[in-house]
């Protein structure tokens, strides 16, 4: 199906603009940034100027007020060229801005959204060293102390939380026990620089090496009660809803990465000759492209349709999980084929196939592993009903 079928004029122009920017500005530096693990403040500023950082922030707060399909196209086109910079944008919008925009009060929105639309970053502190898929095992605590809350604990794998342009992070903490005996969770907006709050980059990553991934330590961090996001006890619900939408971002990154690896390998296969013929004409190669193309068509149509559902306000728990699972596994397939098609060059860092291959792996782990997605889908179809 044509790439831009059923898209409106603005969505097509968004795609063209972001693709051009990614090809002209990001691609020439992507290998170097990846190799040196360099988070580029400069590139992030340029992306903010283009309007990529405030994708669904309303215009009155300086955002672009995009619908979901448009947002997903932006992430797709960035990811087609570079996973790291796509991650900066995707995590910022869906995990950084998302919770403040959806659950924040007017005062919090007015305080943070204009800054987050114009180049400052915000993290989402959910995962802990001992609480990944098992978010129920969160150990960070917040204890009420007059008009303040005192936070203690640690977070890890938090995107965008420790750059020089990071404003702060949303921190999920246990705030007590509910009447039914379960833990009560609440989210807090904690600014970088708050005494006792330390955020620092994690290095030596396999993938997304030019994006900022952080660990956070909270040692008696005092925040005013106005930093509570939404109502006390809403933390887990807020987190689950954020992840429902966050999955669309990761799905989009998978789709974009698969398309990028496909385009990169096809370009190579149409030039490279073996046994006197272009290798793209060998069935063993051609069928790989056919298989990826099938996946790309199905993934794109399903993801866009899921985004349209999200726009309508329909619950997308199952659909988001399906999109995330399918697109991230497609990214793995496509980048694996890309490396194989490039042969020896696929293993060399001067070529981009191996970066696609490394970056793809995160997508099957971050924001809910593929196993957790299958669990979500199975639960939605009733496997575990009484």
């Amino acid at each position, binding site marked *: 199906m044509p790439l831009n079928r059923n898209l409106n*004029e*603005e969505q*097509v*122009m*968004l795609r*063209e*603009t972001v693709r*051009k*920017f990614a090809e002209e500005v990001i691609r020439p530096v992507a290998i170097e940034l990846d190799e040196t693990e360099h988070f580029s403040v400069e590139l992030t500023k340029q992306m903010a*100027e*283009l*309007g*990529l950082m405030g*994708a669904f922030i309303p*215009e009155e707060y300086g*955002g*672009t*007020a*995009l619908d979901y399909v448009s947002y997903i196209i*932006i992430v797709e086109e960035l990811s087609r060229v570079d996973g790291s910079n796509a991650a900066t944008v995707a995590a910022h919008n869906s995990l950084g801005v998302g919770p403040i925009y959806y659950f924040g009060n007017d005062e919090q929105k007015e305080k943070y959204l204009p800054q987050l639309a114009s180049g400052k970053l915000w993290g989402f502190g959910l995962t802990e060293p001992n609480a990944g898929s098992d978010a129920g095992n969160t150990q960070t605590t917040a204890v009420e102390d007059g008009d303040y809350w005192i936070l203690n604990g640690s977070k890890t794998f938090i995107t965008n939380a420790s750059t020089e342009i990071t404003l702060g992070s949303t921190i999920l903490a246990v705030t007590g026990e509910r009447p039914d005996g379960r833990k009560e969770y609440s989210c807090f907006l904690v600014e970088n620089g708050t005494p006792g709050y330390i955020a620092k980059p994690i290095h030596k990553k396999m993938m997304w090496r030019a994006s900022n991934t952080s660990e956070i330590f909270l040692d008696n961090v005092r925040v005013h009660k106005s930093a509570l996001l939404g109502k006390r006890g809403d933390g887990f619900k807020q987190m689950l809803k954020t992840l429902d939408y966050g999955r669309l971002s990761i799905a989009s990154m998978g789709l974009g990465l698969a398309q990028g690896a496909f385009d990169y390998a096809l370009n190579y296969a149409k030039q490279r000759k073996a046994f006197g013929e272009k290798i793209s004409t060998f069935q063993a190669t051609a069928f790989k492209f056919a298989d990826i193309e099938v996946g790309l068509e199905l993934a794109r149509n399903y993801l866009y349709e899921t985004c349209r559902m999200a726009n309508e306000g329909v619950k997308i728990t199952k659909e988001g999980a399906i999109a995330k699972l399918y697109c991230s596994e497609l990214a793995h397939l496509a980048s694996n084929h890309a490396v194989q098609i490039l042969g020896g060059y696929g293993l060399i860092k001067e070529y981009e196939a191996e970066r696609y291959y490394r970056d793809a792996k995160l997508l099957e782990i971050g924001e809910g592993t593929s196993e957790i997605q299958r669990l979500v889908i199975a639960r939605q179809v009733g496997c575990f009903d009484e």
Partner: protein
Amino acid sequence: MNILVAVSRVPDTTTKILVGSDGKFIDTNNVKFILNPYDEYALEEAIRLKEKNGGKVIAITVGPATAQDILRNALAVGADEAVHIKSEQNFDSFFVASQIAEYASKMKPDIIFMGKQSIDFDSLQVPSILSDILDLPLATIVTKLNYEGNMVKAEREIEGGKEVLSLQMPCIISAQKGLNEPRYPKLPDIMKAKKKPIEEIDAPNYENNIEIIGMELPSRSRLNKIVGDTDEDIKEIVRMLHEDAKIF
């Protein structure tokens, strides 16, 4: 300051071009069209001039109904208004220039910008014909501009060097790569472009001055000869170019 920018819609540089079934024009099916790359420099220059001096930028194009997307593009980048001279027929450079001239003679812009050429037919004629019809000074293939009062100093590329011209406004400038670094449209501006006005004008019927008799793709057959580097070989290359390839 009133600025007119003429833009055109051309096939994307990466598009595979095929000849249509009539053998006289390209097959436009499945062809992706873009704003002519040289027009991006013209548009950027116009917007910068407006940002400095105030006024407004009007983008104009001559083309079929489908050409409106490049006007939206120009509006997203920063043009204030757009004019679409609609014509579904295949036309030559004289037609395009005369339609732009017709509009310009009413609008009376202080300066007209356009790309040095459109990358579809590459005839480089529109700026010169427009200059002739409007009787306005023209600098083509311009790589640098300076403005002093109502004078424009234009640096242009010539064979093996550069030439500096001084023109009095109103005047026409055709832009070459290097004139500036075109900006990317900002996402909020893309969303707002739809609200900006596009004036539609039906072009009159017109008989082309130039008739396209036939169009074909370049022959792909090659001589595939490799020769050495002695004087005799060079003579042989000259002979082959002259007699076999008939290049000169």
